[in-house]
């Protein structure tokens, strides 16, 4: 009898505890459901950027790098342009009325960002430590290597870095590029011009003998003049990480651009058609010797967005 009453008392204490705990948890759940999210949202981040409320977004692009950034019949086309369009649309700028492409040459990319003439630069911009002191980078959105392109007539004569050092050959590259620094490191004397396009023109006119730049840019010229040039694979040993340039004073915009690149990367990894893959297939894809995938962006912030609840599979 006693044991039974003790058991019953224990039972009712357990019930009391269970009821109390359930009520506590329910209250906690209620408070939780009314709480502000801990993580910052894309919209909040957008309010911190300098572009918030701006009627137009200005993106600096190249106009004479076929496949990457080119002005064709008054239209900006190319891989960089498409990436720029995707980032702009994600930031809320879609359509010609709200998006302006500003042409920037290789050497003007940093001054344009510093001077505020453009909000973003998507123009085969290699992310380097030196540049990171002057501008911020979101990315990389493309990994490429340095290559040399020679006219078909010289394809058997210029094969190695040693050949490039031969004073008989005039090697051309664009000013302010990472290639210029890399060639200098290998003691290759170069002729520095404004853009890679000028080098290609120069070679066609007989002024230079070879041009060095990154693979993506050279592939563009190879696509345009496929009979006249050939790309020579040389072991420069450095890979170029192309990123989107953002003014150094706007970390919120950098974070947002990185977030949207990551979103595209995630889509591609999940086997969906990502904006990056679409841009790549339409431009560079058919012209590169080996297929490339979107590289994982670095320093991506954790943000919440409206589509976070959508199924991933």
């Amino acid at each position, binding site marked *: 009898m006693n044991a039974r009453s003790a058991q019953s008392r224990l039972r009712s204490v357990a019930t009391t505890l269970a009821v109390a705990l359930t009520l506590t948890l329910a209250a906690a759940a209620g408070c939780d459901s009314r709480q502000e999210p801990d993580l910052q949202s894309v919209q909040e981040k957008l309010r911190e950027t300098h572009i918030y409320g701006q009627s137009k977004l200005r993106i600096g692009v190249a106009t004479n790098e076929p496949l990457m950034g080119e002005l064709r019949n008054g239209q900006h086309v190319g891989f960089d342009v498409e990436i720029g369009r995707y980032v702009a649309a994600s930031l809320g700028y879609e*359509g010609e009325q709200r998006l302006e492409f500003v042409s920037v040459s290789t050497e003007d990319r940093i001054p344009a960002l510093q001077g505020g003439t453009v909000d973003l630069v998507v123009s085969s911009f290699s992310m380097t430590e030196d540049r990171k002191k002057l501008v911020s980078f979101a990315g990389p959105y493309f990994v490429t290597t340095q290559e040399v392109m020679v006219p078909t007539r010289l394809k058997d004569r210029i094969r190695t870095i040693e050949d490039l050092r031969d004073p008989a050959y005039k090697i051309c590259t664009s000013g302010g590029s990472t290639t210029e620094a890399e060639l200098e490191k290998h003691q290759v004397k170069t002729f520095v011009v404004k853009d890679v396009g000028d080098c290609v023109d120069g070679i066609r006119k007989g002024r230079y003998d070879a041009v060095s730049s990154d693979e993506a840019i050279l592939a563009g010229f190879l696509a345009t003049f496929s009979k006249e040039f050939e790309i020579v694979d040389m072991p420069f040993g450095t890979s170029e990480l192309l990123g989107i340039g953002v003014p150094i004073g706007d970390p919120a915009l950098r974070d947002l651009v990185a977030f949207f690149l990551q979103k595209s990367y995630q889509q591609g990894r999940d086997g969906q058609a990502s904006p990056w893959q679409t841009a790549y297939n339409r431009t560079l894809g058919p012209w590169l010797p080996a297929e490339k995938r979107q590289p994982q962006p670095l320093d991506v912030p954790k943000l919440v967005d409206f589509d976070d*609840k959508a199924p991933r599979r």
Partner: protein
Amino acid sequence: MSTAPTVTSGAGADDPVPPPRASAPTGTAVSPVADVPAGVEAGAAGWPAGVPAAEPDEPVVADVEPGRVRWDPAERRARASQSFWTAVVGVPAIFSVLRLGVEAGGELQTTLLLVANVGPVNLLAGFLTTAARLLSTGLVAVFALGAVLGVSVDRLPPGTRRRPLFARWADLTPAWLVLASFLLALLTWPLLYLPLLLPAFVAAFQLRPGRLHERVAPRLLLIVALLAGYGWLVLPTLRDAGGQGELLALALIVVPPVLALFIAGPLPGLVIRPLASVTEVAVLAMLVWAALPVISTPVLPLTVTTVGAENGPTEDVRGHVVTTDDVNMVILQERGGVRYVPVELVRAQVLCPSEEELPRHRLRIHDFHVEDSLLEGMGRRVRPVHRIDAACRAPS
């Protein structure tokens, strides 16, 4: 609670009151059964002719205790059912009208514009979409607490006769309504809070573990198997929650199934009164607190309309489209004020999510986001791709 006409109130205080209602409090002596022919018992008790008497179909006399009134269960049910349907129709109607006022930004003319253009069916449907969660939460809380208090009532200290309010409500409610409330909660609660439904269900139907099997060993095996199945379902989520330091989410997923094992059964006598009073106030407070966002949830969908002449500059108007006719599109702007936009100037229109829809957690249970309800989760599977239009990012 009840708004039914008080038929006995017509009788003066000096009139004799017919038995067996003699000691019923005047405020609660309410009956919708007003069509009983007068004077059935009036002869004996001296009931004035012509005044309808509030009599049950079958008067209960035998089990009347001295000093206490027992209502006829049939009448009670009729009364409860009437109150229930009054609440079911009335509360959403009142809330909907209140919401229109809030939606209009407190402006009388804007409210009238909305009243003129938002149909009652749309309003009610819109209300139910946003309030189903609140409604089911209130009902589940009342039924679960009512059942717990109901089984414990025998242990009340002597002298307290009156059963707690929730226990009386739970007694009156038919089982189908309790089940329907739980079903509604199952479909509309966010997945993260769904485990709480388990102890609530066990409490509401007082399902002791003994019901699983009469012998101890198979019963334990069954419980272990059930918990293992649940564990398999939520283990990846628990790992993520641990990684993200979401302790509340961890507790909400792990603790309720364990509590469900112990929650059925009577409470100690000492606890019942305080628990009844505290929970009554708490449930009321919860309903008021949770009703505020429901009142302020928009009635109309949020859109961004691009307005501008052909080849001219455009402007994005963020707001809710009230109506469109041949001449104008009427937009209630998000920041307040009504814009009449000529239809030929409308260039584009997109539907936008509102910031209240942003998730607070980054946890999923087998690809279902924990803040989605089962219904929402299934919906997302039907239309998995969700694109946020660029125009939605524009400042409001």
